[in-house]
């Protein structure tokens, strides 16, 4: 009974700041307000998202496609870069390990906006990278001209979300019982086979939570695409932001937010299926 009482603060917190806002967003999504201020229930917001066309393009559908593509690319890149880092970190001595984790976390103590803004000066045509390269290569035109392109947006996403991929993978690798690896080697598995058939499957839960923590923020970001994309790479997050902040159309913004939440739930269902499948495999293996 006492234990339960300790949970009340969080339950109250959750109701006020999660449940009620969700209800509000849901309410706004399925209503429209006309010019005279009358609010009626309607699915018009969702209809608009899927059908509105300009010059033969379904604009919001193409924004959604672009968001998912960029989010997917950034997730894959984060995984490709992050997994080896996490793996190497588990192999290090204790002191080196803490230095590495410190280096990984230190940038996150700085404000997200400031960190992203800093990339402007690094990537500009006469910014840090180009200045160094132009001097080294003795050229007077920019060598890397990616600021305000989707490559810069992708870079910003990977930079900002990479720690969220590394840390869960690192945690799951670190928890692993080293005797399992010894057993695999005793049974004649080489280094590669041990990794592929023992280490990697056991780290799947970490990979899954890494993916969840990178994929949806990628699709939902609007700061990165505004700053590094020159506002030309509208993502779903930008649609929500501009509906709320610029247009004052909370109904449409909420409808897009609801669609994003549905996508998130769907991707978590798919991923949890993966997770479970691997768990069963593991128990069978053990």
């Amino acid at each position, binding site marked *: 009974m006492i234990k*339960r009482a300790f949970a*009340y603060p969080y*339950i*109250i917190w959750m*109701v*006020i700041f999660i*449940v*009620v806002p969700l*209800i*509000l967003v849901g*309410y706004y999504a399925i209503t429209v*307000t006309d*010019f*005279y*201020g009358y*609010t009626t229930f309607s699915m018009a917001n969702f209809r608009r998202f899927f059908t509105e066309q*300009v*010059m033969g*393009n379904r*604009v*919001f559908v*193409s*924004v959604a496609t*672009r968001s998912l593509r960029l989010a997917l690319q950034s997730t894959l890149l984060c995984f490709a870069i992050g997994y080896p880092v996490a793996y190497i970190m588990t192999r290090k001595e204790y002191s080196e390990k803490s230095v590495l984790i410190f280096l990984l976390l230190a940038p996150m103590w700085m404000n997200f906006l400031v960190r992203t803004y800093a990339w*402007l000066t690094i990537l*500009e*045509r*006469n910014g840090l990278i180009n200045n160094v390269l132009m001097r080294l290569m003795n050229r007077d035109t920019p060598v890397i*001209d990616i600021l*305000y392109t*989707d490559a810069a947006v992708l870079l910003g996403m990977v930079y900002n979300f990479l720690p969220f991929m590394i840390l869960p993978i690192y945690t799951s690798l670190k928890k692993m019982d080293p005797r399992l690896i010894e057993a695999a080697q005793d049974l004649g598995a080489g280094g590669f086979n041990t990794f592929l058939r023992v280490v990697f499957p056991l780290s799947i839960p970490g990979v899954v939570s890494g993916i969840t923590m990178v994929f949806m923020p990628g699709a939902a970001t609007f700061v990165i695409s505004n700053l590094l*994309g*020159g*506002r*030309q*790479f*509208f993502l779903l997050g*930008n*649609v929500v932001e*501009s509906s*709320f*902040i*610029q*247009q*004052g*159309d*909370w109904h449409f913004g909420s409808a897009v937010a609801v669609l994003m939440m549905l996508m998130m739930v769907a991707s978590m269902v798919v991923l949890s299926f993966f997770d479970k499948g691997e768990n069963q495999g593991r128990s069978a293996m053990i």
Partner: protein
Amino acid sequence: MKKVILAAILLAAIIGFAGCGNNDDDVTPHANIDGGDTATQGNEGGSDAAAVTLHAFNWGWFHDPAIEQIFYEETGIRVLFEFYPTNQEMYNRIVMQGAEFDILFPSDYMIERLILENRLAPINWDNVPNRAHLHHYFDHLDFDPQGRYAAPYKWGLFGILYNRTMVSDMQESWNMLFHEDYAAPHAGNIYMYASARDSLGSALRWLGYSHNTTDLRELHAARDLLIHQGPWVRAYLGDEIRDSMIAGGAAMAQIFSGCAFFAMSENADLNFVVPREGTQLFIDAMVIPATTRHQAEAEMFINFMLRPDIALMNAEWVMYSTTNATALEMLPQEWRDMQVFWPTGENYERGYSFRDLGAFRNEFYTAYNLVLMMVGG
């Protein structure tokens, strides 16, 4: 027991939410049609000025921060500033989110809308004797025809900033940004200003329409023009344009004259032109929201801002054209001779102000967002 508590909290929250719903109705112009003047409610205090803190909502980089200290030393009133990047964001912050401020610095067409919606308190000009220093340009304001609400603060023109080392065939025309022959050679070297009314307004001007159009076909023509122009544009930026142009980040950019003046003072290769097809002439003015509880103090602050020495400080720091005739006389001759600081003759006549477009304004935001969605490819 737990369920009862949770249910009670949920109920309370939903009741609160119903309250929000009612407030939302105020957003529409019709809701407070009989609101009348909500003015002069804030005068009851006055005696205890020292305890008052004014909340001002201004554009970024739009006043000399040193004046805050001077005002505090003279009156004992602290002024806390917050900043907004566009008129729309200011509007949504005070209307949709209900933020309370005592002084705002919106542009002409936004003031027109705020007046129409009864959101402003009339200024008691008896408390603002420094109004006499205003330049005769501001004797009559289209957006405040009776002169009751707005104290003009800064003004200027929207135009093109270009880099002489990159653009050899410069014209005083929007052709440079929209005509294939002039813009395409500078593909990837053009910045557009990230604001619905300004970017679409310049396209409308080039097409020969009014930037205050309420004709959907004209607006859509402008929208399609911006989409067509997309491949030549490096980015849609806000005030970052200024610093990037100083650093040579692009050949041409849409910009407001004050930012252009600052950029030109930092980089001698830059120059500013006012397109002959016409462009926006803006007046940003100080207004007092009807929700203020410190009307008298807000008027003191407005009077302070219109004082010539303070107006001079702000002019020199911000580099946007001052509205203060006395302060103008105190500025160096070379500033007054520069068209980018004090446009005269045909440059001045090319400026037309924005008007509030009523319900049609949302069409601009919708069209602008569609442009941004389409230009990225």
